[in-house]
């Protein structure tokens, strides 16, 4: 699936990177490249939802990044 949103660091534990859509839907990113670790950048991420993964952050569905594009 394709998700467009902004990169945000969420304050759980020592910090977690999230992709937040305009409507507020939040995805916790998995296996993302370090280039995405930048607060506020808008990106289009192609990836798949991992329903078999649980996390300590619990901020939303886990999106495993396959490719991305900075917008």
């Amino acid at each position, binding site marked *: 699936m394709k998700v467009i949103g902004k990169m945000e660091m969420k304050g759980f534990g*020592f910090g977690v990177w999230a992709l937040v859509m305009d409507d507020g839907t939040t995805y916790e990113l998995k296996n993302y490249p370090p280039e995405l670790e930048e607060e506020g950048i808008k990106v289009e991420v192609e990836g798949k939802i991992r329903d*078999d993964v649980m996390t*300590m952050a619990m901020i939303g569905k886990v999106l495993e990044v396959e490719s991305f594009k900075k917008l």
Partner: protein
Amino acid sequence: MKRLMLLCLFILGLGFALFNFKGLAQQGEFDSIILDFKEEVPIATISEEIKQLSSKYNQQVHLNSIFSISDRVYIVEGDKKTLKELRRSPLKEDTEYIEANYLYHALEVPNDPEYSKQWNFRNINVEKAWDETKGEGITVAVIDTGVSKVPDLKLTKFVKGYDFVNDKDDAGDDQGHGTHVAGTIAQSTNNGYGVAGIAYKANIMPLKVLAASGGGTIADIAESIKFAADNGADVINMSLGGGGASSMMEEAIKYAHDKGVVIIAAAGNENRNSSSYPARYPDVISVSAIDSAGAKAPYSNFGAGVDISAPGGSEAGKIIQNTVNPRTGESVFAGFQGTSMAAPHVAGVAALVRSTGIDNPDEVRDILKQSSRKVQEDHLNHFGSGNLDAGAAVELALKGKITFNDFFRWLRKSGYLNLGFWIDGGAVALLPKLGMVLGSYLLAWFLRNYLPMMTLGLNGGLIFGSSGLFFLQGLYWFDLPQWPMRLAGSSIPELGSVVLGNSSLNPLFASVLIPFGLIILLMGNPSLKWFAIGSSIGVAACLGITAFTDPNVWLLGTGTFAQGYLLVNAFLCLGLAFLASQKEMLQT
């Protein structure tokens, strides 16, 4: 023959239990005994008896203080044996009472220098619980990113764990989350260093299922739950969540629960109406988070499935424990927030409760919930049964005053396990609601000469006007908004406050306006008009009862003014129904 055997065994067991029962009075500590002499006993007799006592026990029997002269209260040093002897002696005749002089001590405050920053521990009233137990002999499995032996966990006891991510015995932490969680449960306490933990004499079983990224698979988590159950864990804490329903996970949870393990999980940090998995499984205690002011933490999930709330902190005040910094690998005292931090508070208190001898996980859950501090006005189920209270939980566990309500347990279990909904029995104040329904029927009975009592329209109106289908208000469906339930469960006067989820009445809705509008609109219809008339009577009952039980009207406050407003409108509604029904009778 078999029955006779069973009967004998039962009587034997009962006798054994009674023989071993220790009354509450025998549980306190004392090293002296109080004697209170009767007023009518002459001073000379008392002096003689005190003299004899002093020589018999080879000690100076003395007045408790100079204020005891007129009360004739004397103190004898002694133990249980002395107490028994004195009670059997002839002194019994001359005294009002002979009783143990129980020792009271101030609540225990640990010497950890940063303890003053742990607002969360005072919030859960843990000092009172420490007076009774520190979790001795209990093992808490921390299913997380692993646990590292940081300096402030040095004196904490560890039992064998496992790293399911890297398949090895050493379950050290490369992320920092699990060590923090373990700290809340059992940080080394009274060691003159760092901060405190709740059940600091309990054992920690470190189980690593989340990788350094903070994520892990359901398969690893399910296996770790079984590992914990098979290796002697009494309590499991899972400060993790997400993903979907999984049979493997559900089966593992059932396995551990059946083995007597108390399972606790975080409700999740999405600020949405529903606990995440695994917290939402029925055998798991789901914990939502509050901030340092006691309000729902902004991120905390709520609603369906939430059992209890505990401190999770917020930007304004975080939860401080010793952990490892994943970047440097060094020990650090870090402030974290999240339902991840709230769950281990409950796990720690569950360990305290278990160490008092409560083994059944359902009983532990009931104690935690019943002893929690109830939160008034919790229409969206932010807090479950209320705020965690360690002191009250341990006190309740020791009293053994659990009332089992099997029906509600059945409802809870079969309800949200099979049907996908969850019931909060405390969401609706039942008595006023029943009063409103009965009141509306009573009013209708007064007007019975003018009303067709058995019509569907009238009855529908009476219910809709007075209370609505109020039991629906306590019903939460997983993953669905709850306001439709509140809407269907609301009476006409409550409709104005449905979507906001607060309990103050909207003055436009809690008035004669809607019944008046309904009567004007429906008067021409031969069956619907009875619905309008019934509604008017129902609203009269609702407003009348609310005026006395909970007069809380938006913009008008909660005082006499609001009460007067409700009463005037109640009379107007009743008058309106009366006039409308009169007109009706004249027409027919």
